[in-house]
């Protein structure tokens, strides 16, 4: 059994027999509780935190930060006015939580160390070879990404990978939208430079 079959109310498909047409939820009208946030968004937040932390993130760290996201959300629930969809709101909290946790030099160094240690097996028979190659490629790109500041990295990931609009990223990170575009520009430029450097070194 794989991921999509996991219980995830947010991602659950309507029953085949369901004829009722339902539009997207109107965030203005939602009555959010910790339980409903948890039930509807836990898996999504967990995956997002894992993606923001990168491929070498440890299970315990993902779990730890996911918990912090929900703790923060719980505290902020009273201030939630429904300006953004709950998923966007949680995305912002998750991004800020991950930023806080990875901003320090020590943590950044750990991240870089994690990306370079424990080399993967050189040859694995069968279709595992392809998976290992994919993982190596992911690790290579992430190593480049990890060298930029966490602010730029976060904007890059939220916009480019998570597909959030500039306005949503701005709201989530509580920064002006113009700043989003500036950071995105520099993030792309730095990523390009790192990829370039890596290629020339190899």
């Amino acid at each position: 059994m794989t991921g999509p079959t996991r219980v995830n109310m947010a991602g659950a498909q309507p029953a085949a027999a369901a004829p009722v047409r339902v539009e997207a939820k109107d965030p203005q009208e939602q009555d959010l509780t910790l339980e409903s946030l948890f039930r509807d968004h836990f898996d999504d937040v967990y995956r997002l935190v894992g993606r923001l932390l990168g491929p070498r993130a440890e299970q315990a760290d993902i779990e730890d930060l996911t918990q912090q996201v929900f703790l923060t959300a719980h505290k902020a629930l009273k201030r939630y006015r429904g300006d953004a969809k709950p998923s966007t709101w949680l995305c912002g909290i998750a991004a800020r939580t991950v930023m806080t946790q990875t901003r320090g030099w020590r943590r950044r160094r750990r991240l870089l160390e994690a990306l370079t240690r424990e080399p993967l097996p050189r040859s694995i028979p069968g279709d595992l070879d392809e998976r290992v190659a994919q993982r190596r490629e992911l690790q290579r790109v992430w190593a480049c990404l990890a060298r930029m500041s966490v602010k730029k990295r976060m904007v890059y990931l939220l916009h480019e990978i998570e597909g959030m609009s500039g306005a949503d990223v701005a709201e989530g990170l509580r920064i002006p939208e113009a700043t989003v575009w500036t950071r995105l520009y520099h993030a792309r430029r730095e990523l390009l430079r790192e990829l370039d450097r890596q290629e020339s070194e190899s």
Partner: protein
Amino acid sequence: MSTSCKHIDGFLRSARPNRAVESDVLLTRGHSFESTVRCPVCERAISALENARDVLSEHDPGPPPLGVRQRVLRNVSGAAASRQRIGARWVAGGLAGAAAAVALFLVVSQIRDETTASDTGVDAARLASETTSAEQDALLLLAERPRLGEGIAIVVSDTRRLEKGAGLPEETIDVTEASRLDLRAADVEADKGTRLRVSLDDEGFEVLELDHGLVRAVASSDATDALFAVRTKHGRAEVMGTRFEVLAEPETTKVRVVSGKVRVHPAFAPALTLGAGESVVLPLEQDPQEEAAVDPPEIHRPAHTTETVKPHTVHPKSSEPPSPDERLTEAAALEEARAAVDTDPDLAARIVTSILDEPLAPRDEVTALAILADAKRRSGAPLEAASLYQRVADHTEGAGFAEEALMQLALIHIDAGKGSKALSIIEETHERVGTGVLGPERAAMAARVHLEAARPIEAADALDTVDPEQSTYEIDHLRLATADALLGTDPSRAASLAVMVIDGSAPDELKDAARAILRKARLSGGQR
């Protein structure tokens, strides 16, 4: 590849860069661009960025493994309850602002359920009444920043008191439950029964003095951070940016390095450095006069160097309980398997399988089975996963995992088209755990199975088990789907379901749909 082409800027600045945008940019800026000739610099840069984006987009950490959801909910709920209790007492004093100064947390209790959470709150409040204002600030963090895992953090000191020479209270702590310590220089997990103290030495090391028991530490030796060491009567292990374990027993101390390096100073032997996968057993304390005659301790080096995890020693299977040494190795291997289950489920399965060949403590065994089940599920072996989830649910120590394990088992059956089997598992789960944490999800799952089998009455019965206050968007949606399916046969029941949605906290679009169904039901003879 070079990034020197000035025209690449336009591409880098666009909201959604793609080749069309790039062409426009190049044309607009008068680049030497012809329809069949692209700037090679831009071309390569764009390809590199697109490739990077594709690679990153494919990274999926997967769903949370077994038990995570319940554990996090339990901790978050417990912390929220604690914050309310503590907050009422101390927030009025304006103490929350100093939270950032806190560095040392000591884990003293375990949140297992509501009762324990209450106890934690009482302990925190009691401690708050006995501490200084700085510590009161820190105590607020009990609610602000609980740690995951087996425990909740309670602050006993702050950074000011951790400064060199400031005098840290070197209080001995008996760890009564598996706990986590959040120190300035390291994150430490301590096993139940461990006795320890934390102090700051003259060289700036944050030292965990281990009388007995097992601790696992993840630390960094950055110059900007505090240094960290674990000391026992047999010697001292200094961290050099690593993860390691120390097991202190009456006659020996074992140090095992999971990753990075550790500098070990045996009490009466030359210092030595251990690398990843290496371990050393320090001898009994000896007469200093014999120091010259003592050989350096034997370093146990790993047999493998290419695996990310060093397989622990394989012993012939026996019914004997594991020794402390074995427990230490097994705990590390389980941790590594858990970390690998998302990224390399096959590796995780291999590690756990090797552990399961040996006798394990019941708690470790159920953890290993749960990890293996997750790994099998992710590597596309649902039958094996199903069997393992059943073993987890039936395990004597599996109470904490049972609900989610049975849910996974039911989902596997649904995937396999065995809805009736899934329903019997859902029923069994309800008998075992009552509503549990995942009650609404189970009801929704059962309702979907019934609806797909054209049994709307049974679907309605399943949905009726959900407390109205626990209704979710999905539950309300299913209520409407069920009501719609019942219009022709039981309009009264359909009306009843629609009314539940209207009277609940569903968003407007669902309530509108419910009103439409209610009108139809009344036309068909259903009563409100």
